[in-house]
């Protein structure tokens, strides 16, 4: 059913990775991506891959579940792989017309392909082990310094969390409206593009009306509960670094040093 769609593919669990402070996880993910670009050979990737494998193991997210997440972007991976294989000049090992495969091309293609796969697995691990709402909370706190230069960080985070709250509601609403119009004989599937686009009007108008009604109701409910922006507001969940967060931070730092050393000396 439409209401079962989970956003950002969160995989519920109680592992250490799940319980880490979301800020650490965001910073860790950013560092990991940077490291993938610092690395310049397969030995470096071996380090990164091993680290990632350990994290996946600890998180207890089934690898099959992670690989399924790669499916939608498989096409992009294949595309970059082919692009590299055919476009890089060097020692030719196979040629057909203007298409040629070179040793250097194979190397670059494998290198780029591996980087992309690691990058996607690394960042999907963040959303797999962190609830969307914790992510928005963490983003609000990480962006807080920008408050000083006038960026409304609290409002941005509030908007994101309200969007998360109402996506299922609006999906359900859309489903209801579609069925109601179908019961009145509406047809969304046949005809050319123009008539199909026109057939969306009976869905979109009521959906917008609903969205505005929800917005109005919600604004009033928030005001009634004394909402007045981020100023003077406290939070029930204080984000405090626990021992495991400090340990994670040290590990991240050590790993960064290892990667840099690898780049320089190996």
């Amino acid at each position, binding site marked *: 059913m439409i209401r079962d769609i989970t956003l950002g593919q969160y995989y519920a669990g109680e592992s250490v990775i799940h319980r880490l402070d979301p800020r650490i996880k965001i910073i860790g993910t950013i560092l990991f991506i940077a490291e993938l670009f610092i690395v310049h050979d397969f030995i470096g990737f071996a380090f990164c891959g091993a680290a990632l494998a350990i994290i996946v193991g600890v998180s207890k997210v089934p690898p099959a579940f992670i690989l399924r997440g790669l499916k939608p972007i498989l096409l992009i991976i294949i595309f970059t792989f082919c692009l590299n294989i055919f476009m890089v000049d060097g020692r030719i090992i196979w040629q057909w017309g203007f298409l040629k495969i070179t040793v250097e091309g194979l190397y670059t293609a494998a290198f780029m392909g591996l980087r992309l796969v690691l990058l996607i697995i690394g960042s999907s691990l963040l959303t797999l082990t962190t609830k969307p709402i914790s992510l928005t909370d963490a983003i609000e706190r990480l962006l807080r310094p920008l408050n000083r230069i006038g960026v409304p960080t609290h409002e941005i985070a509030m908007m994101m969390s309200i969007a*998360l709250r109402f996506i299922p509601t609006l999906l359900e609403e859309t489903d209801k409206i579609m069925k109601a119009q179908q019961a009145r004989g509406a047809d969304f599937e046949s005809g050319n593009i123009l008539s199909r686009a026109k057939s969306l009007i009976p869905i979109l108008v009521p959906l917008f009306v609903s969205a505005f009604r929800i917005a109005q109701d919600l604004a009033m409910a928030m005001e*009634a509960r004394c909402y007045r922006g981020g100023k003077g507001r406290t*939070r029930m969940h204080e984000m405090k670094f626990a021992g495991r967060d400090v340990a994670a931070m040290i590990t991240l730092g050590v790993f960064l040093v290892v990667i840099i050393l690898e780049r320089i000396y190996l």
Partner: protein
Amino acid sequence: MEKIIRIDNLIFEYTQGEEETPIKAINKISLEIEKGSFTAIIGKNGSGKSTLAKNLNGLLLPSGGTIYVKSWDTKDDNHIWDVRQTAGMVFQNPDNQLVSSIVEDDVAFGPENLGIEPQEIRKRVDQALESVNMGKYKKKAPHLLSGGQKQRIAIAGVVAMKPECIIFDEPTAMLDPKGRDEIMQIISELHEEGITVILITHFMDEAVRAERVIIMNEGTILLDGSPSEVFSKGETIKEANLDVPLAVELAGRLRKRGIKIPQNIITSEGLVAFVCQYK
């Protein structure tokens, strides 16, 4: 008795579309609500009952007249948050008043806005959820709950702000019978704990539970008194396009045919007790 809300000659006008002359949703109402009381306000759609409710905590401001919550004028910007914390509000649509995608975070929303210490919020959230029997749902997502459960979360969200008065604006209109019973049960419990309850509704069997019933019609107060006083005026109520409780209707019909049933019988239990005297 101490008055928690005082309404003095309240007028509320609004303009619709491009029309010039404003419509009077509320036309000179004066009213006092006693601390700790349970008042039901009944009226058909458009009678001004919801407008009145939203005036009570400053969500709408009077066009004329004044409303005091405790000692604060709702028009006074300096005390608007005191007003809203004192008089909390639960709305009709259970979906559209929940802010967070996790139940306990939603209940925490009000106290967070009040700037309360985190440990204290935690305590209040747990207590509030227990008081509406939703403790075991605290980590759930609201959209997976039933209408009645969502409405209980909304009530917990208000209770966690420790208000002295809660205004319920047709809280059961969108619920099934089971959900309605749950909510009415919780409202009664909150009243017993000392919270002033103002219940806006058009279900008569809910109004019978109140200590005081106010019937509104076309922006004015039509009847005001104890349930038995108000429901004894069945004809007036029907003229305002409203139902009377079942027992009142039956007793009225029997009275017309010469059966002497006392006027103070307004509930089914009362009627049963009366008839059972004659075995």
